[in-house]
């Protein structure tokens, strides 16, 4: 069952459907009104007829499947989560938040260096998706990757140590803030270039299909989730991979963390049609828009999309409308975003929202949540202590891991690396 059908949301005149979002940046669109480049000013006039009260982008779900709507309508009698699930989500989100806050402290204290991009505010997306995944499922992230790794199960100690550049880090200090990898937890990496992670994630999904269909590993139903931002959706690799993933029905979910800003470039100033989810149907896959500040809504959509992928029904594009509470990176003065906009989203903090939901529905007590918060504080403190005390990578590590093959000379007929054969560097070059 698909979340939406491609015909349902296909829009022949995209400008007519983007109106409410475009409105908030009315001034930015002003010059276009008299610009004959767009051909017809008739369509553009619809900007004028918009409700003036709509200062911010819609925060509710714009387009989810009937299934999700049905579930929501039932939610008054039937809660979206159990107590255990709620606690797990809460713990993961609180961990993400506390960890990132600690990173900021440590960065300003000079314990970590380079670019450090924090995830504050977007926790509902990472938690909403990744907590539904199995260990074998893969996650590909961006340079904003600490919290994805934590959600996927990499320990706070390993991530913190990596950030400190220590030998106990998840990549022994060779990766850094933007390059978290974990083979054990199938974290395929943080990718520091825009769009770079999408094809790699699509390849991981391809390998899952290949293992099932060519290598006959019938039980291989692994799903890959690719996270990336709104800025990436203007990059060619995004389109290339939507096409191939749909074409080959790959088990992947494309998750757009639309935090409205690509560093200092507003999404609506960069994108002709700011409703990213609509690009899904254009490639023959469902496109869904969800409130990325509400972990329960994200989770409902994620369940559908991951289930679809696992059943072999192909990819889904999910646009999560979210917001980062801090600048692009810790080096970003963050001067371009409107304080009113920041305040609007700050009031919609996903952690607070989940807390309220669980308490209002008598799922948990305040005390239970406090216990979790205390536990997480300890986990993060411990991670910092561990990282601080850990050794720096030894000098000998510098030249290791360039190749899987220790010296790069390939494998001999005996199946062993040629560099291990003492005769390899002796004698004549004749072979």
């Amino acid at each position, binding site marked *: 069952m698909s979340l939406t059908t491609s015909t349902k949301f296909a829009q022949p005149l995209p400008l007519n459907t983007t109106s409410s979002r475009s409105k908030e940046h009315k001034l930015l669109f002003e010059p276009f009104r008299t610009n004959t480049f767009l051909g017809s000013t008739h369509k553009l006039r619809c900007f004028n007829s918009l409700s003036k009260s709509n200062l911010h982008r819609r925060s509710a779900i714009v387009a989810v499947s009937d299934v999700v709507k049905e579930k929501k309508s039932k939610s008054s009698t039937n809660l979206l989560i159990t107590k255990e699930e709620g606690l797990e989500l809460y713990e993961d989100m609180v961990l993400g938040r506390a960890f990132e806050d600690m990173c900021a402290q440590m960065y300003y204290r000079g314990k970590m260096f380079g670019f450090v991009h924090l995830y504050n505010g977007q926790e509902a997306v990472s938690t909403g998706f990744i907590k539904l995944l199995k260990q074998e499922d893969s996650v590909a992230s961006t340079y904003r990757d600490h919290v994805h790794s934590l959600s996927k199960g990499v320990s706070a100690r390993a991530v913190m140590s990596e950030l400190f550049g220590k030998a106990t880090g998840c990549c022994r200090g060779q990766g850094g803030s933007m390059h978290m990898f974990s083979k054990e937890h199938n974290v395929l990496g943080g990718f520091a270039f825009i769009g770079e992670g999408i094809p790699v994630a699509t390849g991981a999904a391809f390998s899952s299909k290949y293992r099932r269909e060519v290598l006959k590993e019938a039980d291989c139903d692994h799903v890959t989730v690719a996270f990336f931002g709104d800025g990436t959706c203007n990059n060619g690799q995004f389109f290339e991979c939507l096409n191939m993933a749909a074409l080959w029905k790959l088990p992947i979910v494309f998750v757009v963390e639309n935090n409205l800003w690509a560093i200092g470039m507003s999404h609506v100033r960069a994108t002709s049609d700011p409703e990213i989810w609509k690009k899904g149907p254009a490639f023959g896959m469902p496109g869904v828009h969800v409130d990325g500040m509400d972990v329960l809504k994200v989770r409902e959509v994620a369940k559908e999309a991951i289930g679809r992928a696992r059943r072999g029904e192909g990819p889904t594009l999910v646009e999560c409308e979210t917001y980062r509470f801090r600048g692009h990176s810790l080096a970003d003065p963050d001067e371009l975003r409107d304080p009113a906009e920041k305040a609007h989203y700050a009031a919609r903090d996903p952690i607070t929202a989940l807390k309220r939901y669980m308490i209002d529905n008598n799922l948990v007590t305040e005390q239970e949540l406090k216990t979790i918060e205390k536990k997480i504080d300890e986990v993060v403190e411990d991670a910092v202590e561990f990282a601080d005390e850990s050794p720096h990578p030894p000098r000998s590590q510098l030249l290791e891991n360039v190749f899987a*093959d220790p010296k790069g000379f390939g494998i001999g007929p005996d199946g062993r690396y040629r560099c291990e054969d003492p005769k*390899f560097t002796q004698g004549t070059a004749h072979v």
Partner: protein
Amino acid sequence: MLGIIRQKVGAGGASLLRTRSAVSALRSYSSAGKEMTVRDALNSALDEEMSADPKVFLMGEEVGEYQGAYKISKGLLEKYGPERVLDTPITEAGFTGIGVGAAYHGLRPVVEFMTFNFSMQAIDHIINSAAKSNYMSAGQISVPIVFRGPNGAAAGVGAQHSHCYASWYASCPGLKVLTPYSSEDARGLLKAAIRDPDPVVFLENELLYGESFPISAEVLDSSFCLPIGKAKIEREGKDVTITAFSKMVGYALKAAEILAKEGISAEVINLRTIRPLDRSTINASVRKTNRLITVEEGFPQHGVGAEICTSVVEESFGYLDAPVERITGADVPMPYAANLERLAVPQVEDIVRAAKRACYRSVPLAAAA
């Protein structure tokens, strides 16, 4: 672009028809004196490795139903099906990244670029996703992938389609860069590349595809494989060392023949691997001949020749009896006009002249030009 490629394919296909019968004959009777084209050597190596390991698959533009833009993948779709011979859309960045992602999960993709010029659209994935992952992940994620396709100057295709990328890729740690010349090289190195646990850039040459080379029974054996990182001395000599790779090996051998008639004994080294570079073989040869000429089609600055010169200066400076000379492509984008194009790439006579200069047998460079 496509028009040009199609035209070439037509020609390539015709030459393939000629050689196919030879090969099928060769496969049925294992008698001596056999020859094989580079195209069939590559095709058979792919075929055997795909047959040996179901994790190996081929992806790229026109590799399947079209049988390969240069017919390297001829017959593979029929044999292995569309799940293992994947026709991709024209999306280098996309499908190269997909290949890398599949390799992260232990598959062994062979990604074909219609020509290596198009790898520029995907260089981010070759360098940033493939070459660096093993290091960044501290050895957790290895990337057993092969990027292959024709590299370097073809004929009459202009600047954007005539560019040697050997020194580009060879400058990047984490990559292995192989440059086959003969059919033996093509078979042995491609098999080694596919079996290798690391990303390999495999630079073929379009103009060599149709060329036939003698080939031994040993090379035809399905277990045959050449070591990565070892050069081959194609012709022994004592007066001057000539290093070359890919198509330029043929030119160097021709130059050596001409030089032999004039009493100069040239040693020709077929580099085979550009990274890791076989410095010990090169230096051993230079210590013997005391003279060195490097030949490549690529640009001079920061080229393969520059690296070889440095290695010799560092390790064998005291053995040199003459200045080292680099024969390279001209330091210009490739011109289209046939006469200019010929001037822009090394010719046999350039190598001969340089070798003579090194052996003090000719007038200086300015006068010769």
